[in-house]
């Protein structure tokens, strides 16, 4: 139902308007709430977790969910809920780090290519297409294998192949924006190339890049969990969700909750990012409205 506003909204009300728009999308609002909750959980993990995440108690090993341990315990008697809460930190750190690396790089490459065009565009887009044609998870595996497993390696490995979609999108946006009247006007007034690039073109590409980055967070969550599952992500005793599933696999026939719970956490996180990203696209980008 979003319509293209005839006059640009006043700066002051922009954020409030955004919140009203978001409230009209029940699914998107739910996604936003879950993401906000996950950030809070990650920030306040020490306060929220009922037990220390690495505290072993072999007498309490593999307990079914109960009042004392809401989600049960794992093979070392560690409280699964507490480990999930601490694991939110690992996931959020991975997602935010990759986004912080990939967002600016993708944006810069894409906007530069689209704005300048010609040979610069050809070279940058060739490089983008080459990386885009790589199987990213497999390459991340090989990279993690060579660098040694760990959270830092996982973040770098995922980042290496995650920037091309952002670059492509930013380029497509820049191609349209660079010919807009207000850019021509600024050019006539003598604005320098770099001024045009950073102050006039780049800001206009931001909304769709933000949408794409949000949707990307779902993919990053899943890739990071896959690396963790294969033992190439954050190392023990850090509670990483994918690694927790891998550990729970051994007991899946009798103590199914050990493998089940972390997967639910991954699913909820990834779903929240996807739903929020869809809603943001509908709100921020009038061309992609669903109805």
């Amino acid at each position, binding site marked *: 139902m979003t319509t293209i506003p005839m006059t640009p909204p006043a700066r002051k009300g922009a954020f409030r308007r955004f919140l009203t728009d978001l409230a009209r999308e029940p699914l998107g609002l739910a996604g936003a709430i879950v993401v906000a909750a996950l950030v809070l959980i990650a920030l306040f993990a020490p306060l929220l977790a009922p037990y220390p995440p690495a505290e072993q108690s072999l007498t309490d090993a593999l307990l079914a969910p109960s009042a004392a341990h809401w989600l049960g315990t794992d093979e070392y008697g560690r409280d699964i809920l507490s480990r999930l809460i601490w694991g939110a930190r690992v996931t959020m750190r991975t997602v935010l780090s990759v986004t912080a690396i990939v967002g600016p790089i993708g944006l810069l490459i894409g906007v530069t290519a689209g704005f300048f065009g010609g040979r610069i565009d050809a070279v940058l887009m*060739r490089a983008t*297409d*080459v990386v885009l*044609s*790589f*199987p*990213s*998870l*497999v*390459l991340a*595996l*090989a*990279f993690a*294998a*060579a*660098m*040694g497993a760990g959270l830092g390696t996982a973040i770098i490995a995922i980042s290496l192949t995650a920037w091309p979609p952002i670059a492509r999108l930013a380029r497509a946006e820049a191609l349209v924006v660079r010919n807009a009247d207000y850019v021509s006007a600024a050019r006539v007034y003598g604005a320098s190339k770099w001024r045009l690039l950073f102050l006039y073109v780049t800001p206009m590409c931001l909304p769709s890049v933000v949408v794409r980055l949000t949707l990307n967070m*779902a993919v990053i969550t*899943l890739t990071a*969990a*896959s690396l963790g*599952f*294969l*033992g*190439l992500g954050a190392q023990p005793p850090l509670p990483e969700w*994918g690694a927790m*599933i891998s550990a*729970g*696999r051994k007991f*899946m*026939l009798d103590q*199914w909750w050990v*493998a*089940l719970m*972390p*997967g639910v956490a*991954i*699913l909820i996180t*990834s*779903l929240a*990012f*996807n*739903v929020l990203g*869809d809603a943001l696209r509908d709100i921020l980008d009038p061309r992609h409205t669903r*109805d």
Partner: protein
Amino acid sequence: MLNTRLLTGRLGQLVLSLFVLIAVTFVIGRMLPTDPVGAIVGELASPEAYEAMRVRMGLDQPLIMQFFRYVTDLLQGDMGVAAMTGNPVLQDLAIAAPATLELATLAIIISFVLGVPLGLAAALRRDTWVDQVARIISLVGHSIPVFWFGIIGLIVFYAWLGLIGGPGRVDVFYEGLVPPVTGMITIDSLIAGRFDIFGNAMSHIILPAMMLAYAAMAYITRMTRAFTLEQLGQDYVTAARAKGASQTRLLFRHILPNIAVQLITILAISYGGLLEGAVVTEIVFSWPGLGQYMTNALLIGDINAVLAATIVIGIVFMVLNFLSDIAYAMLDPRTREAR
């Protein structure tokens, strides 16, 4: 018929991508913190023996010469020996590849058979409950960790319900009974006329294939819906409707032929995605394919095998992308020479 400029351009892109892939694996191989010579000769080797091995492995040469040798070896199909098995890596991969191919092919068939009708239905019944259900199915498919989904599937359908065969490709007592022709047990058992083995193999492959298919199906549903909506907004659809074409005729005579080209592009991209998904799915289902081979090699630090598997999966992935573009150019009249 085919735009030659587009073809050569795309072919150049493919060759460049392959070259970069090989260069990247070379760099990864050289980044290793471990000493490749020491790994072979052992810690107790004399300095002379160590040096001799270093020369034999070509590691005394400048990097650029090492790279040259790496590329020429690869072009001759020499990917080195896997420390894990003692066999040439290429030989190992040739045994593992059909298993992955079998799994991914069945998965792509399932995902298309389910995804395309669901996407069509969602578009034709837009904003009804059908569309909402399709949207939720697709959203969850985009968000679910495929390895976890596989574990849950095993618990429910194998352990609790006993409906399917468990991990592996066939039950243990059926193993090695059919002569390998294609390396794909479902096909080999049919060739050998052993329908009991075929049935058993199907009961093993169906769950991993369906779990793997789900993520691809989510993507295919979403894209089919978008393509169809795009067509529904076209004038020719309104014209056909005005002439009184039924919904079925509209769908099969007008819309499907028009989105077929786009669907083929999606097919190739999804297949590439499935190959990646197969890497983690194979671990869960003890499926002896490329993914399991690669992960086993990873765990024991057999970098030769890891890089070779990366290259093989990468090549298949890139060739699929290439074929998808070419198919698009050949089938879509708008991209032909006249343009």
